[in-house]
């Protein structure tokens, strides 16, 4: 197992956001999490790379428990995080955004960092003509692909995507989703919070439905969309069956 979560709990000022989440992700597997807003999806992802400290439960990355560790910096280096709002560093070029983690966090030399950055930028199809641009000079789809490259550059064992296309129009979403799909196909272990059913069907081995701080149902994409067992899952997939049939 690349990721194992046991009975994860988190409360914010008295409100229980995660009420005992269990989740497993095999190496090379891509799993999609769906659910209404407020279900705790984003908090779950943020707990996994310890951006948010869970109150209870345990998280294992590659067999190693991280929840009891104090070295959050080392844990975060191993886990790529992609945000809905891209969150690129505005004062740095595309190249600077991708290399900063390598030089400052990993202590890589500038030349090695640039070589690595070129490799991951090509992987997300950001061409050389964009490498010297600043975030404000990029389209939303380009920004998100640069953000993916920034995460990939750190050589993560796991990628977490938090609604990566929710701030993009359908056209731009496509270019981001296709890059994510490629990464998944190439064996990048990924946990993706998204509403994109087509991505789930093409790239994910399963969909977990989250509701009110719990995972209420989980299954292979076609199965869970076609015959959801819980009311919460039915509410999400109702009327969207045509995705499976086409």
């Amino acid at each position, binding site marked *: 197992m690349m990721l194992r979560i046991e009975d994860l709990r988190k409360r914010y000022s008295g409100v229980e956001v995660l009420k005992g989440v269990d989740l497993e992700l095999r190496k090379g597997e891509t799993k999609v999490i769906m659910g209404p807003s407020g279900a705790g999806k984003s908090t779950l992802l943020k707990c996994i790379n310890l951006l948010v400290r869970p109150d209870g439960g345990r998280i294992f990355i590659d067999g190693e428990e991280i929840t009891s560790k104090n070295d959050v910096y080392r844990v975060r280096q191993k886990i790529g*995080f992609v*945000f809905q709002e891209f969150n690129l560093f505005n004062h740095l070029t595309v190249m600077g955004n991708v290399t*900063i983690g390598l030089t400052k*966090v990993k202590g890589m030399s500038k030349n090695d960092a640039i070589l690595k950055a070129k490799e991951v930028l090509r992987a997300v199809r950001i061409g050389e003509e964009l490498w010297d641009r600043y975030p404000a000079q990029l389209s939303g789809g380009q920004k998100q692909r640069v953000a993916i490259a920034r995460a990939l550059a*750190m050589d993560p064992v796991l990628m977490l995507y938090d609604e990566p296309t929710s701030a993009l129009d359908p056209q731009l979403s496509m270019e981001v989703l296709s890059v994510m799909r490629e990464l998944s196909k190439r064996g990048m272990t990924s946990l993706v919070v998204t509403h994109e059913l087509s991505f789930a069907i093409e790239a994910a081995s399963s969909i977990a439905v989250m509701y009110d701080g719990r995972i209420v149902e989980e299954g292979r994409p076609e199965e869970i969309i076609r015959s959801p067992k819980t009311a919460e899952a039915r509410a999400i997939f109702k009327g969207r069956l045509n995705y499976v049939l086409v």
Partner: protein
Amino acid sequence: MPSVIEYIPFLMEGSLWTLSLVALGLSLGFSLGLPIAIMKFYGARLDAYVWFMRGTPLIVLLSLLYWGVFPALGVKIGPFETSVIALGLRSSAYQSQIFLSALNSVDSGQIIAARSIGMRERQVVAHVLLPQALRISLPSWSNEYAIMLKDSSICFALGVMEILTRARYISVATGSALLPYLLAGILFFSLTHAGTSAIELIYRRVRIKGTLGAG
């Protein structure tokens, strides 16, 4: 009586003192104000310091230090040094506010993103927050330069040989008030204008590409 014209080099020399006061005062204000801003950004309560420094007239602070605090502590600190300390302390309060609002204007998502790639908080400050906040704060900071330049004239109260002190001296020596003070005014205006224009030029060079108004 000697003419005012003969005293022009003497007056001009005062601008060196004025500029020294400002350069040292701003530096002291920066080296205290920036850490204060960062500490406040991370939740430290330093409001009392800022309130005191912002709420006290400079001349009161000068007098308090020169005739009150330093003698009480038994240390001998000259008028120039006292002026630099007073200007610097007061400026640190204003500069801390300038830098704090610049830090607050950096989108918090970038801080979280920096943490997500494994940066320590120290690195987040050095590589993400400060490079942006310092750029953002330049226009307000140029204001602080203009304010301190003009306020440095208050140091004439301690006899620092800056522009106003010299203008007063010339006025007494020549019996003419109009020309010495007019020249002092022109000198202050020119230094303010030159300095703020220089900072504006720097700002244009360093501001982040693709953002509002930048090429």
